[in-house]
Structures are given as structure tokens and as C-alpha cells.
């Protein structure tokens, strides 16, 4: 049942992780775009680079040992106290929060804009992390909840003239309810079948939004949505919106952390690891899967409302299947079931495509091959969650 055998010793692993194979693989990927010559050059460069990287890794390994011996020796002689790791991590956290909080003062609008978008995606990805990461239910139509959240705020605001704070609880409640409604038929299914049903749900929502002209204005989308108000002040400036988003991100991370460390979180993890064992020790698997779906949908709905308020415009184009895949990538990249990991994953997957704009045509290719490389070298994601077992 448990394959605890070290995979790194198998001949297949040694072959697929050799610099030769990695370089060949990527060169073949680029072959159709740049022709044989360029692919050949790429192969040689990559081969040399990966080989050097491997050697460097070994060198660093030995140097680390030497260095720590040296440090011990020095410490023994001089009795100087190095700051302890705890204070160092506090200092690092402080530094990071200063960098994050001061962003509107040094960053230009483009950067702040991306940061705001990252914030919205962090909330969205945390929602999916609950469903996929903690409970282990593959949801490929998660963007549907995001869409319902965004459209409910858009419609409540433009049709009924309700403000942000009045629509927020209503919209989020509506999304949570739709999470329950999807979960009831979907939870009779498992694994691949569940994935297909959620995929279908995502498409249904998008198609309804796209075709219900009289209500949602179809593909034209809904414009003129009001940005949120605080004490009569409209938050329309980018810098202000940035802080507004940060508050919600902190709230989401805090609440999800608390919930995942609670009895409910334990039950989710147990269900992910082994459903039959969970029900045989007295966990109500149906109920907890339902909560997981609804709780995940809740955050997606919040992200949707924020998205609509930020863009002041929604259209079905923003809620395609690719969006679901992107959010799933954030969760997997960051590490299933790891809250800081998913924050990191969301930031990387929003930032990276923007940074890669310079290579234009190869942007998606570079991103894709980067993801594949990550899955080869770190299948558990950047920060693998606690207690996640990998099958296969």
C-alpha cells in the first residue's frame, strides 16, 4: 500500500533526471518554433548549464559542511553569539511585511495592478486549496464560483443599486449556497468522475452567463460597477485598493489557517488520505466533504466580488476553463494543503507571465516547461503540505 521505496535509485529516475535527458526534452519542445539549428544550440547550452548546476550543487553540499565546521570553530573561539533562528525569522517577516506594505510608495502602477490581481488570486487559490489540497476532491470547475460571486455583485450593484458592503454578504452567501447545491450530486462521485462533473458545472455557469442576454448582457459583459466605499470614501485609487485587498487576503489566510487546524481540518485531511478508514473511525465523510465544497466556494465568491469591484466590469471571458486550470496550477505549484505555499504559488503564477512578456510568443511555452520541470524535481510543490501522501 505504501511505496516508501526511494525512487531516486531506479535506473529510470537516473535516466530522466540526467542533464542529457532534460536538455533533450526541452530542445525538442522548442524544435517546431526555432528550427533544428536553434534547438541544437539550446540543447548544448542547456546540457552544459544543467551539468554545471549539478556539479555546483555537489560543491555547495561539501562547502556547507566545511563552512559549518569553520563556524563552529570560530564560535568556539570568539564566543560571539549569532542571532538565533527565531529572531532571524521574525526579522525576515518584518522585512517582508515592510516590502509588501510599502509597495504603493515605490512601485509604479503596473506593479501595483499586478499585486492587486495576485491578492485576488491568493484568495481564490486558498479556496481551491481547501477542496483539492485539504479534502482531496478534484474540482475542475472552481472558476464557476468565482464567476457567480463576480456576477452577483455586478448585478446587485447595477440593477438594484446596492452598495459594496450590502452586496458582499449577499453575494458570498449565494455562492456558498451554490457550492452546497453542486456538492449534493457531485459528492456521490469520486476521483475522475467528480472532476468531470465539476468541469461540466463550470462550463454550464459560463454558458449561462454568456447566453442569458436579457439578464447578464451576454458576451458584452456588465460595466459601470461601483468600486467599494469606506466611510463615504470611494476606493478607486489603485494604491488604496491594494491595501483593501491586503486586508481581505490576511483575513482569508487567518481564517483558513484556523479552520484547517481545527477538528474540521483534521477530518478533511483524513478524508483525503483514506476515505474508508475515515468513515470507519467515525468521521461523517459526506458532511465534511459538503462543508469543504461550500467553504471553498465561499472564498471563491469573495474573490469574485473583489474582482468585479476592482475591474468595475465583468464578462464571461474572465471565467473560462483555463482560469480553473490556472488556479489549480497555483495550488499544485505551491503545494497541496500548504497555505503559505499556495500564497507563493498564486503570486508566482500571476507575476511570472507578466515578467515573461518580453519573450512574447514563447511566454506560455516557457511557463509550461517551467511547471513540468517543477513537477519532475519537486512533485510535492514548492512547500508541500503536511501529511500529504503522493500516489503514483
Amino acid at each position: 500500500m505504501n511505496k516508501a521505496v526511494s525512487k531516486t535509485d531506479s535506473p529510470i529516475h537516473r535516466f530522466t533526471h540526467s542533464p542529457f535527458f532534460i536538455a533533450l526534452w526541452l530542445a525538442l519542445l522548442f524544435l517546431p518554433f526555432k528550427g533544428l539549428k536553434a534547438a541544437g544550440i539550446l540543447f548544448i547550452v542547456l546540457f552544459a548549464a544543467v551539468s554545471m548546476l549539478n556539479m555546483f550543487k555537489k560543491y555547495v553540499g561539501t562547502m556547507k559542511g566545511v563552512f559549518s565546521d569553520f563556524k563552529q570553530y570560530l564560535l568556539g573561539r570568539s564566543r560571539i553569539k549569532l542571532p538565533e533562528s527565531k529572531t532571524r525569522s521574525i526579522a525576515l517577516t518584518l522585512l517582508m511585511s515592510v516590502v509588501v506594505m510599502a509597495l504603493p510608495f515605490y512601485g509604479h502602477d503596473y506593479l501595483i495592478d499586478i499585486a492587486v490581481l495576485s491578492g485576488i488570486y491568493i484568495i481564490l487559490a486558498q479556496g481551491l486549496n481547501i477542496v483539492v489540497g485539504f479534502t482531496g476532491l478534484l474540482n475542475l470547475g472552481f472558476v464557476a464560483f468565482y464567476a457567480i460571486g463576480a456576477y452577483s455583485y455586478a448585478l446587485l450593484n447595477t440593477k438594484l443599486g446596492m452598495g459594496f458592503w450590502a452586496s458582499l454578504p449577499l453575494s458570498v452567501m449565494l455562492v456558498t449556497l451554490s457550492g452546497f447545491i453542486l456538492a449534493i450530486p457531485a459528492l456521490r462521485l469520486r476521483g475522475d468522475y467528480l472532476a468531470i462533473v465539476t468541469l461540466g458545472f463550470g462550463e454550464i455557469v459560463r454558458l449561462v452567463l454568456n447566453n442569458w442576454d436579457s439578464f447578464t448582457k451576454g458576451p458584452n459583459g456588465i460595466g459601470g460597477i461601483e468600486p467599494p466605499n469606506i466611510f463615504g470614501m470611494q476606493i478607486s485609487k489603485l494604491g488604496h485598493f491594494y491595501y483593501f485587498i491586503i486586508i481581505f487576503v490576511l483575513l482569508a489566510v487567518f481564517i483558513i489557517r484556523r479552520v484547517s487546524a481545527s477538528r474540521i481540518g483534521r477530518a478533511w485531511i483524513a478524508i483525503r488520505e483514506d476515505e474508508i478508514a475515515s468513515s470507519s473511525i467515525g468521521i461523517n465523510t459526506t458532511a465534511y466533504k459538503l462543508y469543504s465544497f461550500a467553504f471553498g466556494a465561499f472564498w471563491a465568491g469573495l474573490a469574485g466580488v473583489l474582482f468585479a469591484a476592482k475591474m468595475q466590469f465583468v464578462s464571461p471571458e474572465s471565467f473560462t476553463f483555463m482560469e480553473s486550470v490556472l488556479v489549480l496550477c497555483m495550488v499544485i505549484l505551491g503545494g497541496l494543503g500548504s497555505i503559505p505555499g499556495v500564497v507563493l504559488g498564486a503570486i508566482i503564477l500571476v507575476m511570472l507571465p507578466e515578467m515573461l512578456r518580453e519573450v512574447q510568443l514563447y511566454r506560455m511555452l516557457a511557463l509550461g516547461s517551467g511547471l513540468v520541470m517543477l513537477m519532475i524535481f519537486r512533485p510535492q510543490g514548492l512547500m508541500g503540505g503536511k501529511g500529504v501522501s503522493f500516489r503514483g
Partner: protein
Amino acid sequence: MLELNDIRTFYGPIEALKGITLKINQGEIVCLIGNNGAGKSTTLMAISGILKPKAGTISFIGSDISDMPPHSIVEMGISHVPEGRRIFPKLTVKENLEIGAYSRHRDHRLKARMIKAYDLFPVLKEREKQLGGTLSGGEQQMLAISRALMSDPKLLLLDEPSLGLAPIIVSRIFKAIQEINKEGVTILLVEQNAHAALNLSSRGYVLENGRIRMHGQGKDLLNSEEVKKAYLGE
């Protein structure tokens, strides 16, 4: 204590249990033996609610549990050690035990029960902080049994505890089963290892093709010509 009355279950169109009627009294060790596919594990799954019977009734201490979901059945006091152990490989031994007490979260005797589990299998105490998946097969079985005991059951269902274990470990586990029984837990044991199981049990049922072929005292079944020929390889 537990009564099954004409239980029938289906896997798709296939009738796995064709009317099982059995009875377990308080404090007994009862074993179910039979060939592969006879319906032994299915019977346990029907009792613990993982598989819903299509017909028949199951009653436990006077109340009908045939329509209850598995978690309520655990709360009633029936704990199931599933076939193949099914411990949580990526949780530590301690966490495995803690989650075993999931249905008893309002009970403050969790610590006492954990100490009892460690008394029963001291090796688990040594491995307390190790991940479940790194234990040996025998230790995993011990962990699975202890985890089931964490919910303080009145009736323990054991599905092939000797599966794939060395004879010395099997005898250790069987001794533990007797100890658990002495503490007042009624036990329903499913086994391929018919000889050892019948020796341990006060009564036994022999299953064949989803029906009960015969039943009687453990010793009588051990000496029965039919059982000897079919299951004991004599």
C-alpha cells in the same frame, strides 16, 4: 448484543450476501471463516454501515442500525478495523491514534485510552512520533487495532488481522485480541487462518457463497470433518 437478520447486499447486480442471519452475545469472540469471496468482509462492512444492505435488519443493543450512516454506528459503539489495515501513512502514530478518537471528542479520557493502547502494544509508544507508513506490517496492524479502540467500542470488528504477517506477529496479535476481549469488548473476527481463529473463538460461523453454511462452538467446528476438509487442509 448484535443481531443480523436475513441480510442481503449487492455489488451492482451481484448478490454478495444471500441472507445472513447471525447473533453475537455480549463478551464473546465470534469468528467468521470461509473461502475468498464467501462474503466475510462484506458482512463486516454491512454491520459498520460502509455498505448498505438491500434487505434485512441489523440491530445493536436493541436499536436498528441498518439505515444509520457509518459515523453514527461508530458513535453507537461499533468499531471496524478494515481489511489491509488502512492506517494513515503520512500521519504519525500518535496522530493516527488521536484521529481514532474523532467520534469521542467530548470525552476527556482520551489520554487514558492512549496510555491503554500503548500498554497493549508497547512498540507503538516507541514509535509514537514516527509516520504510520514507516511501520512494519505487524506494527501497522497493531496501530490499526489501537486506532479502532480509541473510540471506546463495545463491539470490535476485525477484518483479517493476520493478513500478510509473520507467524510470531500473528500470535502476538491474537494474544492482544484475547486481552481486549477480557477488558469487556465483544469481538467479531474475520479470518482466513481458520485454525487459529477457531481456537481463539467461543463460537464460529462458516460462510460459503454469501450464505451461512454452518455454525457452532469453536471447538466443535475445529473437529468437524467438513470444516477440516474444506478449510483446515486435513
